[in-house]
């Protein structure tokens, strides 16, 4: 079997795992296990939230190392799950290169179902608006705002605005909308509506993943994500705060 090609495919799986928001320890462990199952020696893998490097020694004694960098990581748990299944299969059955390539292609071509994403934004914001003390009005309006937030975030991503500024701008956007709806008496509980919409921006993933990384001794990655969580929270507060000061007259 062509080992160079094999290691490339394995690295590609690692890159996809990282890109779709798997924890760092999962990336490292998956890569190590896959290499082990093909009988490679001296396996060294080190991953950071946007980067990993690995080096192995093949059975004929030659060694190789390669690095991958991922930009624009986006959480796609469906893909993480599919990749996890693939990794398990590779470890158990050590399939051929063609099979792995085929599977990677299949996972790459799995596009998210857009209507469900949009529904998710609406349902998430609406559900939490009610959760934090809103009524039916607040739920529906927050759902609409959440829906619009998706497009706002999308435009920001197209324009290449960095994630902190994007979070600030989005939280300003949602606060403006919520205050306008409140001003025209479509909602009665401004706080619940804003909090419901804010939940979409909150760094829940960053907090949970960073801790899971730290448990495994990946302090660098864990710390990077903790800092990210802290900055995101500050960005959210900044956006809401600014608009609440500027539009004080409308409340």
């Amino acid at each position, binding site marked *: 079997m062509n080992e160079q090609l094999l290691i490339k495919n394995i690295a590609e799986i690692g890159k996809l795992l990282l890109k779709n928001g798997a924890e760092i320890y999962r990336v490292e462990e998956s890569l190590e296990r896959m290499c082990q199952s093909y009988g490679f020696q001296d396996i060294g893998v080190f991953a950071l939230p946007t980067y990993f490097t690995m080096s192995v020694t093949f059975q004929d004694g030659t060694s190789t190392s390669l690095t991958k960098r991922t930009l624009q990581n986006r959480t796609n748990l469906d893909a993480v799950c599919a990749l*996890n299944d693939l990794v*398990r299969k590779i470890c158990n059955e050590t399939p051929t290169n063609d099979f792995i390539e085929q599977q990677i292609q299949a996972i790459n071509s799995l596009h998210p179902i857009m209507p469900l994403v949009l529904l998710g934004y609406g349902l998430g914001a609406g559900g939490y608006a009610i959760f934090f003390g809103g009524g039916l009005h607040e739920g529906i309006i927050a759902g609409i705002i959440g829906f619009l937030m998706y497009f706002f975030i999308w435009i920001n991503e197209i324009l290449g605005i960095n994630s902190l500024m994007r979070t600030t701008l989005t939280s300003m956007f949602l606060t403006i909308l919520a205050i306008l709806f409140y001003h025209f008496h479509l909602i009665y509980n401004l706080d619940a509506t804003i909090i419901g919409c804010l939940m979409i921006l909150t760094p829940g993933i960053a907090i949970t993943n960073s801790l899971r990384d730290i448990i495994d001794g990946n302090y660098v990655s864990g710390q990077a994500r903790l800092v990210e969580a802290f900055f995101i929270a500050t960005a959210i507060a900044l956006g809401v705060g600014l608009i609440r000061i500027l539009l004080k007259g409308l409340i």
Partner: protein
Amino acid sequence: MEQVIQCLSAFLGCLGFAFVFRVHRRLPYALLASLGGMLGWIVYLLVIPYLSNIMSNLCAMIVVALFSEIMARICKAPATIFIVVGCFPIVPGKGIYQTMLYLISHDQDLFLDSLFQTVGTALALATAILIVSTFFKVIKTIKQKDYHL
């Protein structure tokens, strides 16, 4: 009645977040993860009369994390799916908002109090994951006899 509405809306909200995080082709997982989030909130409501806010959040998150790890083993899926979606009722979104609000209105006592609560809740969330993940790692080590004497 209010509690029932909270639990149901927590479920719906979690389901929304499952879709946001692209759990599309595994709908049972999305539903299970949302159920975990709701379960966490039920626990929170049960213990809040006896414990402080931060401790209640800790208990709730421990249940969510336990549920997630167990489901991950039953479904043979990464635990992240369930934890990431299920943690949202406990994520201090309200805390961030209120802290900002008190800061703007120059209400220092309330500001410090809610800042403390927000950071505390985030730490509780983290600690709960820490406890449960460590617990399951130990079980795994014992099961695989992977320990070194």
